């Protein structure tokens, strides 16, 4: 990991943010809620992406963002009109830009064909730019337009004399640029005369070493175009006062008519760029970011560092509880003082823990921001029209949850667009606006996050769902179902209401997978709908996946954690409630239902556990795929919040165990994977393969090595 690749990672992370900004501002532009700043922000985002891309030699990215930027520049200067059609093109361009950044991040092949096509479209619009200065903002003058018009009349290849006024600001140096290098680069373009302006240089005592006092007036005689000259200053443009114009008085100057054109332009240009620079400084101040010296309100921290902090706080809690246990042995005269200290420590530790967990909290914005693009792409493909409204993007959840909600949201939005929304004609016929609306909202409720995906489409056709469920044998032919029960059928495996399977949704991976994944995270998902006016998917999730509620149980002297989300109830069955099947499997009777019993100790081959459920306890648990089961344990130790630790970082996956946690005494306790346990117990009825699967022991592994090593051995003998 060298410096460059670290910078590269930082750059790519910044690109993510810039692309998100871009999306937000483009949406504002699209909705007509944009202010004058909007186009500037869009331009800046693209410009920043381009600047970094140049540094890391992402050629496709540079080329494309260059075209993109050129068009945006003309748009913000008012030379190209912003129309709805062009905004759509900008959206497409931002999608391609995102793809290019993605390709750069993964080192995969960039989507060059799409980029080239779109770049041509962008360039085509840029070329329509008005060059006449009439009825435009003063901004228009800043881009050396007078110079451009002078240049246009110039014959290609003709030597022109440029006068370049270059006054670096202090930021230029802070961003590690060097005027000398720029002047040297100019020298490669043609003959250069440099004049330094020392007028701003104060007395020695007043000099601030980090400030910029010098300015240069450079006379360049060259046959290159003005663009080439401007390109030299490309990366410092924002950090200096720069004025490039053609000195018409020079020998070999164009016709005199241009002279009148050029001189007002020159003055305008100088004023313009001054003003622009001031604006920029103000903007940067507002954004509270930028170079050193600006206020910094947030920092980027590697997640690993935060995790280390979380770990250490966890250890602190354990140490503290160990101390309080030992305090009991102290003589009573010293105990009071000590206990008081311990109590304070406990308070501080708790606060510390909360603060650390808060660091990991992030707004759901990062996920929501990806959805407008999805809506665009899917509606394009389906020939439907929809707009996305997002609410509550600032709602915060733990980083771990953020990573997990993207897929289900994507899936449900696709589902809404595909199955929920009607085509425009049908909508109009039903008296609805042709554009459908998808509302994506997030809020906190009762220590959980609730995410709603609502559409104003046709709603769920209950009779169609029911008919299909009957066809698939999910519902008994004569059974009557309540509306919510019918809606719940959508989450049944292998269910799809669409008449045709499209590539948008319904490609086998259905809502059943969404539900299973969400439940795997300790969440719930449901759907409600009213015919003709829309469908709403509601998903609730815990705020963090780093911590969960668990029941600590003992089996054969060993402690395990059962996730509380799986638990229905705990009971001690009477002798007569336990029944035996001929296969030897046992069932427990609970209010008329018979549930299979699963002995934790037997599943894990632990000796010395309770063998009779009526002497131990049965925890009734439920999983999505395998239904209910009675887990036989020796005793319950109580319920508590546990921190989830991965076992797989340093060890192989263990069947029946999903993760581990650290108990108050510092020891590790495995967290049970109930569904995995249920599968294990099914396998165990057929011994030969079951035995192999259940014992991931050394024997099997040695064999694996032997077989893999064999070919290599042959090479050497």
């Amino acid at each position, binding site marked *: 990991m060298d410096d460059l690749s670290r910078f590269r990672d930082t750059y790519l992370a910044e690109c993510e943010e810039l692309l998100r900004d871009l999306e937000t501002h483009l949406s504002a532009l699209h909705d007509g809620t944009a202010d004058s700043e909007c186009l500037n922000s869009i331009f800046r985002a693209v410009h920043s992406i381009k600047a970094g891309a140049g540094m890391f030699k992402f050629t496709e990215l540079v080329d494309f963002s260059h075209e993109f930027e050129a068009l945006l520049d003309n748009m913000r200067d008012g030379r190209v009109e912003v129309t709805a059609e062009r905004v759509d093109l900008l959206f497409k361009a931002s999608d391609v830009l995102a793809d290019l950044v993605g390709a750069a991040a993964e080192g995969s092949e960039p989507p060059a064909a799409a980029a080239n096509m779109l770049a041509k479209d962008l360039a085509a619009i840029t070329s329509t730019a008005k060059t006449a200065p009439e009825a435009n903002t003063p901004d228009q003058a800043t881009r050396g337009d007078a110079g451009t018009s002078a240049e246009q009349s110039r014959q290609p290849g003709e030597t022109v004399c440029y006068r370049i006024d270059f006054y670096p600001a202090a930021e230029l140096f802070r961003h590690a640029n060097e005027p000398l290098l720029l002047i040297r680069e100019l020298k490669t373009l043609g003959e250069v005369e440099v004049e330094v302006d020392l007028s701003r240089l104060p007395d020695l005592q007043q000099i601030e070493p980090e400030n910029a006092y010098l300015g240069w007036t450079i006379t360049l005689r060259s046959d290159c175009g003005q663009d080439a000259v401007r390109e030299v200053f490309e990366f410092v443009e924002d950090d200096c006062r720069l004025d490039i114009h053609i000195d018409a008085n020079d020998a070999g100057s164009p016709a005199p008519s241009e002279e009148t054109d050029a001189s007002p332009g020159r003055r305008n240009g100088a004023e313009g760029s001054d003003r622009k620079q001031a604006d920029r400084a103000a903007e940067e101040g507002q954004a509270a970011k930028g170079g050193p010296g600006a206020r910094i309100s947030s920092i980027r921290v590697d997640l690993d560092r935060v995790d280390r902090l979380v770990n*250490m706080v966890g250890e602190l809690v354990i140490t503290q509880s160990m101390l309080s246990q030992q305090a009991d042995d102290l003589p009573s005269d010293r105990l009071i003082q000590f206990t008081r200290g311990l109590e304070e420590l406990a308070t501080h530790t708790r606060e510390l823990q909360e603060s650390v967990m808060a660091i990991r909290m992030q707004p759901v914005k990062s996920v929501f921001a990806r959805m407008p693009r999805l809506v665009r792409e899917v509606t394009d493909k389906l020939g439907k029209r929809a707009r996305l409204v997002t609410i509550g993007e600032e709602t915060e959840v733990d980083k771990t949850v953020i990573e997990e909600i993207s897929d289900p949201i994507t899936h449900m939005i696709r589902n809404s667009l595909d199955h929920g929304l009607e085509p425009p004609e049908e909508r109009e016929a039903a008296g609805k606006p042709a554009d459908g609306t998808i509302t994506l909202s997030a809020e906190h409720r009762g220590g959980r996050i609730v995410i709603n995906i609502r559409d104003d489409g046709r709603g769920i056709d209950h009779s169609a769902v029911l008919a299909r469920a009957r066809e698939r044998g999910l519902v008994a032919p004569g059974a009557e179902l309540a509306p919510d029960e019918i809606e719940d059928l959508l989450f049944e495996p292998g269910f799809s209401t669409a008449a045709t399977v499209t590539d948008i949704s319904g490609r086998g991976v259905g809502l059943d997978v969404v539900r299973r994944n969400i439940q795997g995270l300790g969440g719930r998902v449901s759907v409600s709908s009213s015919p003709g006016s829309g469908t709403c998917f509601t998903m609730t999730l815990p705020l963090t996946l780093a911590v969960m509620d668990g029941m600590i149980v003992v089996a054969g002297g060993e402690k395990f954690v059962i996730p509380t989300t799986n638990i229905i109830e705990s009971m001690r069955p009477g002798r007569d409630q336990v029944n035996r099947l001929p296969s030897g499997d046992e069932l427990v009777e609970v209010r008329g239902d018979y549930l299979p019993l699963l002995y934790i100790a037997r599943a894990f081959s632990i000796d010395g556990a309770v063998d009779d459920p009526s002497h131990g306890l049965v925890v009734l648990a439920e999983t999505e795929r395998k239904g209910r089961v009675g887990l036989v344990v020796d005793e319950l130790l109580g319920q508590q919040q546990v921190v989830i*630790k991965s*076992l797989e970082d340093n*060890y192989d996956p263990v069947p029946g*165990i999903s993760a581990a946690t650290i108990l108050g005494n510092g020891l590790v306790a495995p967290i049970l994977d109930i569904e995995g346990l249920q599968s294990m117990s099914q396998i165990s009825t057929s011994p030969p393969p079951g035995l192999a699967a259940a014992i991931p022991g*050394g024997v099997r592994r040695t064999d*694996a090595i032997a077989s893999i090593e064999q070919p290599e051995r042959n090479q050497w003998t």
Partner: protein
Amino acid sequence: MDLSSTTDPTDRPAPTTAGDGESGSGATERQSVGEPLQFVTFTVAEEAYAVDIMQVREIKAWSEVTRLPNQPEHMRGVLNLRGVIVPIFDLRCRFGSGLTDATATHVVVIVAVADRVVGILVDAVSDILTVSAEQIRPVPEMETRGDKDFLKGLATSDDRMVAILRLDALFDLNELAADGTPESAGTAAEQ
């Protein structure tokens, strides 16, 4: 940092697994000819063994561990190492001499193997051994093939032989295990 790993003499004694198995122990690749190599030496069942000092993260006294279900015989369980869960392996048992009767005087050496952190239970940590690469002798061909695979070479310390361990081969903590599904392992064994 010198990366002239191709001439690393420590690889020569056991060419059969050179290359593949070395992914994790970048520490040995770093050393060039002539540069002294350092190892942490310890004893297991009266015999002396060593691991590359660059792989050692920490040395701590034995403490209670949590058994995992159906763990391999030579695994003792997992330990909480400052919030990270680390599996602990019994070296004596791995060498086929039965489980160590672990007491508070036994030592766990925490080592980095491939991208994982594991602990190995040993009887006692002895010393740090500094030898030049030339002083490391190859492991001779022997009747039983097992040993050679997890030994990198032999060194001498205080007139005693010290076997330098190839940890990744010893615990097979790399991708090999992940690929070795029960089915494929079974067919491989039959062949």
